[in-house]
């Protein structure tokens, strides 16, 4: 087995270091070459590793899950306990590495066009490379400690890129929000790791954090997963560990109740939204649940929670997405909703389908974001659907790729989303029980909502007539004055070109809107191709071919402890598929009825509409019960505690000292006779003392 995981990790790190140190001084072409080159080489190494895993017989990974484990360095040694820096290559991480570096590479290339005019070009690409590094560390780590490191570093990359346009208050606020909410998740993961350590330490005396320890020839398999999942285990402790892991997942993957940061994260540049907040980072939670499947399998209660949270989130987020006016926010809620699907699949033990949906979702959601990014780019930063429309003729490539992605996400055959979504719905339907059926109904309803909101975007952006007033100024162009150093550098390097024809005259109608440059359309086309064919790695059992399910077979060794998964029967599969396709078609039809002739925004006084339009007032609610009191507490503390109590205390000490010394210094008159008198007085006192004592 050729294992190039370390190279996958190192190339983006190298790119990040070079760009971070020297990016300021080198040309844009060089920056782009280094960034894309680093990511491309990482993708190449990931592909080589992937194919070598593909060529390794599955039995290797079944008998020894740590067969592809490489240990490079011992990080922590404490008595017998040690944590080493190692990277694990197995089917699951191979697939994840392919998705991360592949989609990452495509988006790197796209960013070259999208960020062309931005003064922070080098900063952007160094952050982007840093993100790829962190994400590879997350999915490649072979123990929980380095998982945590990667987990926190992707959060940092996300923070940096959301707040990339740091002159905007909204972007900075969104970045802070994302960081704070993610820290809650990181905290959950940390506690879970502590508990895992105490658990394994009790079991074998030394403790370990490795997923699997390489047993050597014929030795027994050890590691976290084996020691937590083999009897005797303490059921409730495992449940608590799983729930804490899932807290981390809800924060990172934006599930209820910690989803609030993702819609705000749309303040970042659109390719970032595509890469981090749609395709890769937010799926880390799905990855973690799949990775920790041996633990979750022995804690069915926790898995049930995963499924329920996923289902509720899917429906909740899809309903918010229905009437949002900011196109990127629609996609953000859509991402949350699709992540809910993945958790639903994992909730009924169908991990490989969760990962399958993760992959197809990476394709079509990245495509949706990139296409919307092309539109936003062409319109000079306009994100309001009310000021779009009629762009079909002006931007044909963007239009057609967007339609493909929209069909894929709605689950229309034969696009990628159809296969993965229907596998999820099929297994929900098959798992039965009240929970299974309830989740299935939720999934079906969500599918209808998905069809509606995504085609609302299609019609709103591309159909009807243009409602805007021509491209506004470039989104980040008007901030350049506030960034003197970088703006100066940028203009020294090359004059800041204006978009399109070089004459972004206002009020010119859609005449000044142009299709994105080739560097941006090629990634769209690649992703559109993947959105069409990406689903064929799933199962064809729908068409009576039980032998064709390459992805599930490939991933099977990772999930070989899963016995509780119910394979849907042929009939049930057809029922589920038929219902879901019909419902999503209904959703699309509904969107066509309402918006087919062009989007028109109407004020709607219906309380339900208002509730959904204002995102169920969640932000307002938390602002009232959490943020306002906390801000009040902070201000009160800084005023009363810090200002009056602490500062006042030190002021009092200073005042007392100053008063005392002022009094004492008055004794130093400088007149010799005073001193002489004092001496005399002292002598008299001493003599009197001895005289009287006698």
């Amino acid at each position: 087995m050729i294992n190039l995981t370390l190279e996958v990790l190192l190339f983006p790190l190298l790119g990040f270091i070079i760009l971070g140190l020297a990016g300021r001084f080198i040309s844009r072409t060089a920056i782009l070459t280094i960034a894309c080159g680093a990511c491309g080489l990482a993708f190449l190494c990931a592909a080589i590793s992937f194919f070598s895993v593909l060529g390794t017989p599955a039995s290797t990974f079944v008998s020894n899950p740590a067969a592809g484990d490489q240990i490079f360095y011992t990080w922590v040694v404490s008595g017998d306990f040690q944590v080493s820096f190692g990277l694990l290559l197995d089917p699951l991480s191979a697939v994840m590495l392919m998705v991360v570096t592949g989609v990452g590479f495509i988006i790197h290339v796209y960013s070259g066009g999208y960020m062309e005019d931005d003064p922070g070009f080098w900063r952007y690409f160094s952050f982007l490379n840093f993100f790829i590094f962190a994400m590879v560390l997350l999915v490649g780590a072979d123990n929980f400690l380095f998982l945590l490191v990667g987990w926190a570093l992707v959060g940092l990359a996300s923070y940096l890129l959301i707040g990339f346009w740091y002159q905007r208050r909204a972007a900075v606020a969104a970045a802070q929000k994302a960081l704070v909410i993610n820290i809650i998740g990181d905290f959950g993961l940390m506690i879970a790791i502590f508990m895992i350590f105490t658990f394994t330490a009790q079991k074998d005396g030394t403790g370990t954090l490795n997923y699997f320890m390489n047993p050597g020839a014929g030795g027994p398999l050890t590691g976290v997963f084996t020691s937590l999942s083999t009897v005797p285990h303490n059921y409730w402790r495992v449940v608590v560990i799983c729930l804490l892991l899932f807290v981390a997942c809800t924060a990172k993957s934006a599930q209820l109740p910690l989803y609030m940061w993702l819609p705000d994260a749309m303040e970042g540049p659109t390719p970032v939204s595509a890469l981090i907040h749609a395709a890769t980072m937010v799926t880390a939670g799905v990855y973690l649940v799949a990775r920790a499947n041996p633990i979750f399998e022995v804690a069915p209660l926790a898995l049930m929670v995963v499924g329920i949270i996923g289902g509720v989130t899917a429906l909740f987020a899809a309903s918010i997405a229905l009437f949002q006016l900011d196109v990127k926010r629609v996609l953000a809620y859509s991402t949350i909703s699709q992540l809910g699907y993945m958790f639903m699949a994992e909730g009924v033990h169908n991990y490989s389908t969760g990962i399958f949906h993760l992959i197809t979702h990476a394709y079509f959601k990245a495509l949706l974001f990139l296409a919307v990014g092309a539109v936003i780019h062409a319109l000079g930063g306009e994100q309001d659907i009310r000021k779009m429309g009629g762009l079909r003729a002006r931007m044909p490539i963007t239009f057609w790729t967007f339609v493909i992605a929209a069909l894929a996400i709605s689950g229309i055959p034969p696009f990628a989303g159809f296969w993965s979504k229907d596998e999820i719905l099929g297994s929900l339907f098959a798992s039965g029980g009240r929970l299974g059926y309830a989740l299935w109904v939720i999934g079906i309803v969500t599918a209808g909502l998905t069809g509606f909101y995504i085609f609302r975007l299609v019609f709103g952006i591309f159909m009807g007539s243009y409602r805007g007033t021509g491209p506004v100024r470039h989104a980040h162009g008007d901030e350049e004055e506030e960034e003197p150093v970088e703006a100066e550098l940028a203009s020294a390097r090359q004059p800041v070109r204006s978009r399109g024809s070089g004459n972004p005259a206002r009020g010119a109608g859609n005449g000044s809107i142009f299709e994105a440059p080739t560097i941006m359309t090629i990634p769209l086309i690649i992703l559109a191709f993947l959105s069409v064919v990406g689903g064929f790695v799933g199962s064809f059992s729908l068409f009576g071919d039980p032998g064709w399910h390459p992805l599930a077979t490939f991933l099977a060794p990772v999930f070989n402890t899963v016995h509780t998964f119910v394979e849907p029967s042929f009939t049930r599969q057809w029922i589920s598929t038929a219902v879901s396709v019909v419902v999503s078609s209904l959703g699309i039809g509904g969107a066509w009825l309402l918006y087919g002739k062009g989007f028109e925004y109407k004020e709607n006084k219906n309380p339900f509409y208002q509730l959904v339009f204002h995102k169920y007032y969640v932000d307002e609610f938390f602002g009232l019960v959490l943020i306002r009191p906390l801000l009040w507490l902070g201000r009160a503390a800084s005023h009363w505690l810090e200002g009056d109590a602490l500062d006042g205390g030190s002021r009092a000490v200073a005042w007392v000292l100053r008063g005392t010394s002022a009094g004492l210094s008055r004794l130093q008159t400088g007149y010799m006779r005073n001193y002489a008198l004092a001496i005399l007085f002292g002598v008299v006192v001493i003599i009197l003392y001895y005289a009287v004592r006698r």
Partner: protein
Amino acid sequence: MLPLSWYLIVSAILFTIGVSGVLIRRNPLVIFMSIELMLNAVNLSFIAFSRYLDSVDGQMFVFLVLTVAAAEVVVGLALIVFIFRTRRDIDVDDMNVLRG
């Protein structure tokens, strides 16, 4: 022969005059003289005790005190002369730069 107490009374009077001089006078030369007066008051009592106790220890102390007083006068007068050269004035009440 006069009793010891007479010598001691004279010595105490001399010492008191010396102390008063140090405290009251402003001219450093006079202050110096007052200090000498105090020293000599002590010397007088030493001598008186030496005679009274029939011991030479007191007289040895007197020689020591005289030597030290001579050395002190040398240093003190040098200082006073130098202060006078720099300030053209030796009033001790004007030398209060160390006032707190």
